[in-house]
């Protein structure tokens, strides 16, 4: 007799995406709903925590109902409820955590607490990719820029992270200064295709030996602002596509080279990309080219666009191994905005 699948409801509210999903056995997506608040925050040029929290509260419960309905299941058919409890915006995380705890309690289901950052890894697995280990994972989004190492046993180690702005944040801030709109990533990606990436030589923060896998993007952002300021003062015509293309080139080069260095140093079999910025076409192309040239034996995986950005399917998928070894959370679970990698 075939064993019944383990159905887990995932809940995600760590930033500006309200999400709910039902996943079977950590791999098969039965439903994956995301209600984005991007437009609400657009006029502020970034996520406003209080507005995000208010919106999560309004959207989450009906979204859970819809996710269950789309999956064709009821609460009582589930085996567990999973929620991301950090890192992220504390007020936003609290909505997911309070909702997951109360729903699990009402339905007498076990509760699984998931690290949002680690969950991004599971997006690749949801695509059905078979991954060879060790793997180096670059997570780049509006909230994070991290390099992780995952070994055969699934253990995750943080290799490095940004010391100031996240990659997606740099995209947003530059787009705001250039008055391109929000969110900046997709807009810059598109405009950069018409520009010359070598037009302006913006600085790359390699950080040397004290942070071979760390990132820093605030200097680059400042350089773009200064360039704009001086060009305007001199009354020069600004070639926007050249400017954003050169900015993107500088940012992507650092991401790619550091990832390649980590993959080489740690003898990785696989490079994984995840997070919203993993949707950037220049990053995907560059990473593929550079891997082929310098580490041809290493395979590159990146998830579908829908699974790159924050979603709840990855939360449910990440909860599956925890569910299997009965790693359940208790009713006093709290949001942990600064939750790091490798901690429970």
């Amino acid at each position, binding site marked *: 007799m075939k064993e019944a699948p383990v159905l887990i409801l995932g809940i995600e509210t760590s930033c500006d995406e309200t999400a709910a999903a039902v996943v079977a056995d950590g791999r098969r997506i039965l439903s994956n709903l995301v209600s984005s608040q991007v437009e609400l925050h657009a006029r502020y040029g970034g996520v406003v925590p209080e507005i995000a929290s208010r919106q999560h509260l309004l959207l989450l419960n009906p979204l859970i*109902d819809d996710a269950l309905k789309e999956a064709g299941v009821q609460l009582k058919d589930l085996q567990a409820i999973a929620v991301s409890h950090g890192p992220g915006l504390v007020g936003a995380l*609290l909505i997911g955590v*309070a909702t997951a705890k109360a729903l699990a309690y*009402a*339905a007498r289901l076990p509760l699984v607490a998931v690290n949002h950052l680690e969950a991004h890894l599971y997006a690749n697995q949801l695509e059905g990719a078979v991954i060879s280990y060790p793997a180096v994972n670059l997570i780049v989004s509006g909230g994070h820029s991290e390099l992780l190492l995952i070994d055969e046993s699934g253990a995750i180690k943080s290799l490095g992270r940004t010391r100031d702005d996240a990659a997606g944040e740099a995209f947003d801030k530059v787009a705001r200064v250039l008055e391109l709109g929000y969110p900046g990533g997709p807009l810059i990606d598109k405009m950069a295709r018409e520009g010359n990436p070598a037009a302006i030589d913006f600085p790359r923060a390699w950080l040397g030996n004290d942070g071979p896998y760390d990132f820093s993007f605030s200097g680059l952002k400042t350089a773009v602002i200064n360039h704009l300021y001086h060009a305007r003062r001199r009354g020069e015509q600004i070639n926007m596509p050249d400017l954003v293309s050169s900015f993107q080139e500088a940012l992507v080069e650092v991401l790619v080279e550091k990832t390649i260095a980590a993959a080489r140093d740690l003898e990785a079999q696989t490079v994984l990309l995840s997070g919203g910025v993993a949707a950037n076409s220049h990053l995907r192309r560059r990473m593929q080219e550079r891997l082929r040239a310098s580490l041809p034996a290493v395979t590159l995986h990146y998830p579908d666009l829908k699974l790159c950005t924050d979603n709840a399917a990855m939360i449910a998928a990440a909860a599956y191994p925890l569910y299997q070894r009965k790693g359940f959370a*208790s009713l006093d679970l709290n949001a942990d905005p600064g939750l790091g990698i490798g901690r429970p």
Partner: protein
Amino acid sequence: MRTLLILGIDTTTLSCSVALLRGDTLLAEMTLNIKKTHSERLMPLLDRMLTESGIEREELGAIAASAGPGSFTGLRIGVSTARALAQGLGIPAVPVCTLGAMAEAVPAPGALICPLLDARRSEVYSALFRRGKKEPYALETLLEPAALALEDLFALLREQYTGPVTFIGEGLQSYSAQIETALPGQAMAASAPFRVCRAALVALRGKSLLREKPGASYLELLPGYLRRPEAERLAAERQGGLKQ
């Protein structure tokens, strides 16, 4: 049919409180008035209360949650929890005004009651109620809940009301001296233990709301912030001097 068993929840201020009300009988109430996050305390407290009362969660008939005004984060924890409990148990749920629930703590017939919470930015969340003189001694709302300057509240009370006003709520901690100076002889303060927001009073207010709307859905259990997000207010001010 058994009398409706109502769960009350209040996390809008420093206190974290849960209660069980069946008809007019308060079966249980647990209140913590300590500095500990509501997120960590609320569910364990609820579980403990049900266990001690010998009541299964499935026996709950409805939920009443204090929806604000109060701390934005605090009230959202209570409201989110109440919404998800109602969703999971398939029972009705109603939002209760924090200030109205607080006023229920003053039982004297005919009393003018003014609940007060610190709203920061030199304002308070307040309202004015009058307790009925006869059965069922219901509260009548004289001033709708609002965020307003303390001075404006004083002026209104001085000009429009002559009788004694009983102040209640956490706001007394910061403002009792100012109240005494502004309204000599008119203002009375509820004694300290009665100022704490209590879930039993939320459940009591919820009971009458549920009588009007017995099938109220958790989707309508929404926060009553009384204030826009700061970023929204500033943006509106920049755009045309619009003040909230």
